[in-house]
């Protein structure tokens, strides 16, 4: 089951390696990972998505918490957190389909961020479900490339 972890981490060299080392040493795959500075420049915010059961997750959280560089670690589910991901999609653009394509992009509040003779790059943000739906809708035009930022999450309230 996919689980989302939110970490607040010292913004120092080696902190990320120490954290990812815990995963790799146990053969746990990281589904997605984002790191960036927060309102406090000495702290990084990290969102990690993993596929683990409850027991394995509990152990992992304790190990993360044990690291000196990890200030806080929480497991969140979709109800407790706002989750967003940014997706860029390069799609084939055939002459007769332009209007329809743009209309469908509009439905997702996607923006065109690059226009080339035979392709567009669309940018869209949203949660997992929305991004999946977005990809499905554009499949029919011919997807050339998709890149996702990985999820960022922030606890509600």
């Amino acid at each position, binding site marked *: 089951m996919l689980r989302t972890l939110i970490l607040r981490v010292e913004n120092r060299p080696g902190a990320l390696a120490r954290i990812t080392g815990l995963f790799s040493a146990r053969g746990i795959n990281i589904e997605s990972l984002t790191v960036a500075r927060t309102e406090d420049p000495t702290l990084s915010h990290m969102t990690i998505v993993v596929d683990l059961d409850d027991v394995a997750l509990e*152990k992992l959280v*304790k190990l993360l*918490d044990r690291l000196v560089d990890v200030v806080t670690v929480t497991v969140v589910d979709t109800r407790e957190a706002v989750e967003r991901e940014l997706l860029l999609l390069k799609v084939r653009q055939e002459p007769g389909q332009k209007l329809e394509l743009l209309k469908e992009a509009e439905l997702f509040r996607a923006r065109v961020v690059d226009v080339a003779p035979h392709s567009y790059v669309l940018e869209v943000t949203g949660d997992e479900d929305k991004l999946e739906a977005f990809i499905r809708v554009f499949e029919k035009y011919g997807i050339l490339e998709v890149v996702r930022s990985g999820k960022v999450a922030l606890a509600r309230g």
Partner: protein
Amino acid sequence: MKRMKGTEIFVECLRREGVEVIFGHPGGAILPIYDRLYDAEIRHILMRHEQAAAHAADGYARASGRVGVAMATSGPGATNLVTGIASAFMDSVPMVVFTGQVPSTLIGTDAFQEADVVGITRPCTKHNYLVLRTEDLARTIREAFYLARTGRPGPVLVDLPKDIQLSECEFEYPEQVHLRGYRPVLDGDREAIRRAAVAILEAERPVIYAGGGVIASDGAEELRRLAEIGRIPVATTLMGLGGFPTEHPLSLGMLGMHGSWYANTAISRCDLLIALGVRFDDRVTGKLSEFAPTARKIHVDIDPAEINKNVRVDIPIVGDVRRVLSVLNAEMEGLVSTHGTAAWVRKRQQWLAQIAEWKRTYPFRYEYDERVIKPQWVIEEIARITQGEAILTTDVGQHQMWAAQYYRFKHPRTWITSGGLGAMGFGLPAAIGAWFARRDRPVIAICGDGSFQMTMQELAVVAEHRIPVKVVILNNFFLGMVRQWQQIFYNGRYAASDLRVSPDYAKIAEAYGLRGHTVRRPEELVGLLEQTLLASEPVILDVQVAAEENVYPMVPPGAAITEMILGPLETTAVADSKESIA
């Protein structure tokens, strides 16, 4: 504030930490610090290999309860330290390790003797640092010592580029440590402790399973009180030896793979397991599903990550073992007095009688032989002569297990062994470190012939400082523990475990200017041990023992701890008593 060079800051910070001795080996990238140490008060002991420097710091730390310090140069010096660091990490030993590094401007250029030491040691340190500004040096050293000794202790490494050692900055000693991501919990939850006390009161057949956390927290006295108030038998792990006196009537000795039959049997039959400062290691538990299968479980440990790691427990208590036990003991005293001491004694009578019977059924036993020295006998004699007052260090293998089984432990911090990592070559350097910590006790290194050859160059250190350690090599001309496994699990095919071609260890001692003796016949042993063990001189004893003796009992890997392979003497006795238990 005063302007100081990095090297001066280094020495000043160590002085403030109360460091008396550093075990190390120099090289280009750490020379500025060595130059400063040349006329500093802190002693430096030149070990002959960096692995030994780390093991010596480990031995020093465990014997004293203080932080051990090891030091080496960049690149090969630092990589040589890794085994010692990993061993200290597995055994939660407080240690600070300093390594020189190429100048910060050269880092990442594959410079001469450059190695990514913080990268290499990240998984085997509690924390590590690469210092990139001299301004950060004092704070980093302060944090390193603080991290090493607090919470669950462990090794912390500080990597020091050469230019950082040489530059100057304003020096201000950081009195306080601020680490917002590090808050060890020392005091256990009161409510959980109360529940634990009630569980002990209700239990018919409780057993204490005590480990290294008892020693690390200086909790042996509180453990003894708990055992006596609650009338609870105590089994210790390899790391917990010395935490409870072997000769105490409530002692079950060591449990686990080579533990006593009665300890493992008691664990399997108990209805309450009180786990103190332990981590349910596979060498202890055997097959997990059959480890204390019917027992409720209390687990006290300072590291929350140990709770429910291998075994789900009913009453988890996160905290320092000694502190938790002192509260628990007060609670227990209250309960016992309400309950009435007589009723309490009656309640435990049956269980303790049962255990006494098990202890008689199958004590640790071996067949004495007049023609050849039995290794177990050597340990028994050492225990008799030293009266359990010595500090024992060991290498890894059969001799280590015999020492654990046959020595009569009296005091915490007198048993120093590489438990978790099991690093051969640990014994001699650890003994050197232990002697610098405790000059008031005899220090004896129980070595294997195979292990000794991994760090025997440290005899030079023994000779240089006339360190009165006694090295007892239980020489079976084999990598004995490997040979034992090959005999039992690989049809006696002794692949690469034969050490028949070995040096003459007495002559090696002589070559270093030390006294060495070879002992082959049983009738020579006792006299020689009596003459040498308590002498004020270093001695190396090559005790040639029965070559194909095995360590029993033995739980095959992966089996339940009751499925012990028993020695040739015991098979029938135990089979009989098993029926009577069933």
